[in-house]
């Protein structure tokens, strides 16, 4: 069996460095398997977050050779093992320990987004009727597994650290799912233009490229949200109405 070297970042909020680990690799292994093997063999306290190991829970996000990836879906056969494989925590969030980051900001920011406000039920028994096409449009967004890789690559968060003025691609996808939900009657455009900071996105599409669920984040979620903001807030007639109403 072949042996490969993994350079894994070890440390905490105070700092850290890469440690080299060698382990045997076998057919079909993914990066997370290698990390687990190293953990069991030698680095017993190596911190890594994971759950499903099947690309469904979005827990094991990390940067593998500099690329934001789910470790459980990154196969070693797709990586050049002649060179050491570098594994480091995602960059857009503060490190807790080793490969684990504090992603709690995402959960706090999500709470600021107004929840679903469903229209009155369509039938007397309190149920709704929805067409499959209408449901399909939103189901793309609801595939999101909250791995936060899109948040990690977004330069507004990663490089400019504007976490307080911008909710990031994941939460735009969430907002889009609500805004385009067939039953929803809430209006979030004011928040989008204001504290959610949709205007900061300059459509570089980095988020779309890293999405493990292949959600077309920029084109299908963010751009339509930007258009909604423009339609409501920069429409001359509506601006006039708002002015007259003193809004």
């Amino acid at each position: 069996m072949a042996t490969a070297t993994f350079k894994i970042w070890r440390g905490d909020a105070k700092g850290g460095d890469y440690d080299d680990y060698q382990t045997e690799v076998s057919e079909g292994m993914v990066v997370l398997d290698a990390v687990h093997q190293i953990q069991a063999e030698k680095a017993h306290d190596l911190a890594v977050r994971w759950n499903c190991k099947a690309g469904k829970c979005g827990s094991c996000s990390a940067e593998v050779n500099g690329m934001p990836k789910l470790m459980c879906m990154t196969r070693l056969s797709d990586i050049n093992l002649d060179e050491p494989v570098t594994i480091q925590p995602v960059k857009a969030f503060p490190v807790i320990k080793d490969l684990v980051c504090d992603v709690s900001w995402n959960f706090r920011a999500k709470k600021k987004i107004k929840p679903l406000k469903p229209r009155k039920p369509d039938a007397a028994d309190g149920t709704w009727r929805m067409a499959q096409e209408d449901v399909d449009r939103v189901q793309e967004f609801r595939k999101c597994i909250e791995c936060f890789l899109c948040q990690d690559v977004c330069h507004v968060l990663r490089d400019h650290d504007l976490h307080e003025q911008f909710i990031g691609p994941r939460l735009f996808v969430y907002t889009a799912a609500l805004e385009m939900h067939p039953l929803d009657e809430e209006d979030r455009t004011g928040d989008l233009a204001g504290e959610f900071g949709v205007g900061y996105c300059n459509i570089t599409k980095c988020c779309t490229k890293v999405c493990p669920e292949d959600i077309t984040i920029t084109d299908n979620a963010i751009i339509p949200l930007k258009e909604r903001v423009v339609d409501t807030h920069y429409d001359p007639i509506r601006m006039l109405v708002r002015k007259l109403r003193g809004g």
Partner: protein
Amino acid sequence: MAEYQTQEHDVVVIGAGGAGLRAAIEAASAGCSVALVCKSLLGKAHTVMAEGGVAASLANVDERDNWRVHFSDTMRGGQYLNNWRMAELHAQQAPDRVRELEKWGALFDRTKDGSILQRNFGGHRYPRLAHVGDRTGLEMIRTLQDHGIHQGIDVFMEFTVVTLLKSGDRVVGALAYDRERGYFHEFRAKAVIMATGGIGKAFRITSNSWEYTGDGHALAYDAGAELVDMEFVQFHPTGMVWPPSVRGILVTEGVRGDGGVLRNSEGRRFMFDDIPDLYKEQTADSPEEGWRYVQGDKAARRPPELLTRDHVARCIMREVKEGRGSPHGGVFLDIAWIKEKISNAEEHIKKKLPSMYHQFKKLADIDITKEPMEVGPTTHYVMGGVRVDADTQMTTVPGLFAAGECAGGLHGANRLGGNSLSDLLVFGKLAGEYAAAFAKENGAAEAPAEQIDAAIANSLAPFDAGDASAEAAYAVQHDLQDTMQDLVGIVRVEHELKEAIERLGKLRERARKVRVDGHRQYNPGWHGALDLENMLVISEAVARSALDRNESRGAHTRNDFPDKSEACAKVNTVVRKGADGAMEVQQRPIAEMRSDLQAIIEEMK
């Protein structure tokens, strides 16, 4: 004296999968202050992995369906060991719980007239599973999560509960440690709800993640609660078998519900070879009839691939054992064959089973629209759990409630696919409701400080135990998994079960001595050491219960007792901690079924 912080709430919910979230929402809506304590991040619990759907007799696809049929299907699937009152409540309330999710934002696939679409699944007489492609669990947990965060619930992510706290006979809280920092927290509560899920990690091949170490079962047991039906562990017939690193990952039953067939190495659909008497009337007698069934022909009967999971798993084992398996020790599951029947098969498969397509393509280089998958049984679910009152979900310990997979009773000897998602909604809600009522009727109480100090000392012991040469928890866990897989697996026999119990005793000795490196912050080595205690308790409970049931029924197969026994049909196996600390096993007679429910069973035969 140990250091810890104290949090006070009316109700503390442990576990944030579907049952925990639903319970927390209900308790909060009753006006209680609620803490939701979860081992991982919110939204990552195993519910997220559920694929096929949630069973509820909405009758949107087949108007003949109603709660009575669902009730009788559930009882038949459980071989009548189920708590019939739970099965009744479950069948009656599931439709409302599903419709309620829609109000909170869930978007299920639709029928032509815009109602919730339902699909076929093993053991369900009519198409009954509301679903979203093959990612129903994600839709459900996200809906509950996104609704729940606006209900004033305090969520404590990445907190692991190490013990329940008691004042006299009553449970009055839990002691947890916060993994991100390593600090201890006392959660004081008037009522505690266990919703910790399953025990799959006690086996080598499992669809479960690292979290499923039987915490709720073991903590409740230690607090004096009874466990019931622990011999019944569901081995899902279709897990991935190749490559080795993905062995055990689930392949949804939805593949078979949408026309997928099982074949052996000779190309034979072996499921036609052995159809149990209980299901003869309901099962197709030709591949052609089976195909008509999955296409929605109401006159046709189910293909044998949709027999209950226990039976399908055993048939697969038989094929492998008799040398007709696939190259890597499984059998073939083929959905690609439907291209002989429909013109847009590739597109259809990708639409109905997107995450299966993705999973096989990414992890095994298999295109399921073109070639068959290799599958074999994987430890998936435990039917057994903490024994609860059917109406209130309270355990035998006052103040302690349980719901979802960690509670026992609903599923009897075998769970039908789709009944777990409905289980956690129905009983999550009831647990939340009655825990809130209990909290209102009973004042605050707290555990003596010595109890907390002792628990903290016990949790920290692995840092001091063992010398530098002692082994870490990983090796012990690994050997425990081998023991359970090899000796307490799908097919059991007395001498192996006895050997397992003996080996578990030795593993307990090793577990006491494991070494922990590093410090308390986010230390999986330490966490693993703490998990071992729970895993040993539930493993022993499974092995002892299995040894006590001298028959083969549902998910429990004994080589030395291959048939069902009439005497065993009348009892549940109950496990509890004896006064001397040793595990006691009892056979408890099943209460006689109410006559109106009996009449339903007769009518549906």
